[in-house]
């Protein structure tokens, strides 16, 4: 068996930059490319798009990403796995086939279905957040179980060029190709834990390479305009060396790797995926060269009995308005403006928030008592049951132009629909997954 196995991370979220994946496919010498594009809310939003048009509901950037990548994947014999199927993996595969046909590139796409468990959701299912039953939340629009490698492996075993999924645990997207390559057993928890650690380090793409990290003067990262995305060279035991394509921007070092290993991990001694419970406190990280960090020795113990389900519900609307003040007493004028809006709207909007951007908006108070901002932006946000009502918030802020403190400028108003997310658990047996193979070849076309 060829060692090491190289897997690259081509996207860390739905809206991520397009070209780093192209660089990996062109010059990264990767065996596999994984694109993680599905946030918790993203799948609920996709479900809403699918409701309006049954041919939609997959990732909005899928077509642009695949048009760039398909020729390179074929030329360099790279396989790809992605959760860009979102709420409609079958339609995503059809979209990929259309691109392949237009480019006359033969292709086989395997689709993993089964994460959509909306039909199995009971209103009395207990949510993990606060123990309240699902039925207490708003209209439920989506329920997606986090699938693991047990669902992905049958799709990979078809030999398809591309595997498209909906909701899958992010590290599983990376672990599955490793497990396929090395033939790891689903009960080989140490190897699965090590592969999961590598997958977790890769899943946010640029965040391993200095993105969401840099700080001028203290945490310097070169050429962030051209940040490279990472790949891992994984050995047969799951230990890995993280690196990136030479000549790309960014940096992979001990500090970036530590931040990413711990990122969003509620319990480092028990990081839970559908595949394994991994203990990241056992990880040994070593910087073995420029932009090269080894992660070794992670251990695992068992896997969770049930699967986590992410449930999306309609949470109403939020209206926002903003206006800026500058110079002498800027903060006092912004505060006065906020009080005016609050006095006019408080009765109608029980959930309202007034922020002074540039002063106390992010953390509710200033940690530096001596700071006096030159300019301050007032932001008012309130929840409303309808878009029309939410609009009133921005309108009130806009009216401060002529009715509020002096020198207020640059108003903006927004209305957003909110999709809330809560979680629950479901027995594995109630989440059966299936694989559908779709293909296009020039022979089939001729026939």
């Amino acid at each position, binding site marked *: 068996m060829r060692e090491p196995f190289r897997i690259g991370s081509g996207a860390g979220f739905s809206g991520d930059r397009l070209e780093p994946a192209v660089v990996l496919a062109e010059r990264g010498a990767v065996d596999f490319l994984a694109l993680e594009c599905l946030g918790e809310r993203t799948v609920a939003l996709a479900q809403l798009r699918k409701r309006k048009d049954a041919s939609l509901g997959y990732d909005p950037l899928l077509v642009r990403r695949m048009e760039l990548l398909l020729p390179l994947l074929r030329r360099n014999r790279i396989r790809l796995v992605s959760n860009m199927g979102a709420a409609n993996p079958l339609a995503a595969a059809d979209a990929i086939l259309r691109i392949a046909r237009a480019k006359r590139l033969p292709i086989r796409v395997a689709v993993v279905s089964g994460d959509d468990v909306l039909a199995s959701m009971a209103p009395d299912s207990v949510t993990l*957040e606060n123990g309240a039953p699902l039925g207490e939340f708003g209209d439920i629009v989506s329920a997606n179980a986090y699938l693991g490698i047990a669902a992905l492996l049958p799709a990979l075993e078809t030999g398809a060029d591309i595997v498209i999924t909906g909701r899958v645990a992010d590290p599983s997207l990376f672990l599955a190709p490793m497990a396929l390559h090395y033939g790891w057993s689903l009960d080989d928890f140490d190897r699965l834990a090590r592969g999961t650690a590598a997958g977790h380090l890769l899943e946010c793409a640029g965040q391993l390479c200095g993105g969401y990290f840099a700080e001028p003067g203290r945490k310097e990262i070169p050429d962030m305009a051209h940040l490279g995305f990472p790949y891992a060279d994984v050995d047969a035991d799951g230990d890995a060396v993280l690196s990136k394509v030479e000549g790309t921007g960014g940096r992979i070092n001990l500090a970036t790797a*530590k931040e990413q290993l*711990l990122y969003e991990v*509620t*319990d480092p001694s028990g990081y839970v995926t559908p595949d394994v419970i991994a203990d990241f406190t056992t*990880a040994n990280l070593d910087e073995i060269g420029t932009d090269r960090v080894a992660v070794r020795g992670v251990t695992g113990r068992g896997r969770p009995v049930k699967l986590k389900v992410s449930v999306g519900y309609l949470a109403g609307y939020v209206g926002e308005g903003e206006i800026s003040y500058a110079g002498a007493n800027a903060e006092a004028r912004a505060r006065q403006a906020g009080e005016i809006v609050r006095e006019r709207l408080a009765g109608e909007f029980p959930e309202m*928030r007034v922020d002074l951007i540039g002063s106390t908006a992010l953390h509710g108070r200033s940690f530096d008592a001596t700071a006096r901002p030159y300019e301050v932006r007032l932001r008012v*946000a309130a*929840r409303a049951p309808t878009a029309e009502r939410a609009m009133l918030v921005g309108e009130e802020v806009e009216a401060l132009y002529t009715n509020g403190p002096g020198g207020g400028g640059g108003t903006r108003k927004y209305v957003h629909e909110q999709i809330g*997310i809560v979680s629950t658990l479901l027995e594995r047996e109630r989440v059966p997954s299936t694989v559908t193979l779709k293909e296009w070849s020039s022979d089939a076309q001729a026939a």
Partner: protein
Amino acid sequence: MPRLHELAHCRAGDKGDTSILSLIAYRAEDYPLLVERVTIEAVASHLRGIVQGKITRCELPKLWALQFTCERSLGGGVTTSLSLDAHGKSLSYALLEMTI
């Protein structure tokens, strides 16, 4: 009294209404000081008004890191919060303002 920012770096992550703050010493020799001074109580006091729920702390000596899991810290949850920074991505730098 050094500011935490001089000794450590930090990244914020989120899960629902929970903010996860990874505090990592730049140098191994400073890690014991973090363990001693950046206690759950100190963090609760420093982030009062932000963290409304329970805080747990996990020590990771191999990474020179402390992981703080702060419940009820994101305005009711990332997806329904009215906050400007609903994910609490900027909370890492609020923690680094702490003097120890």
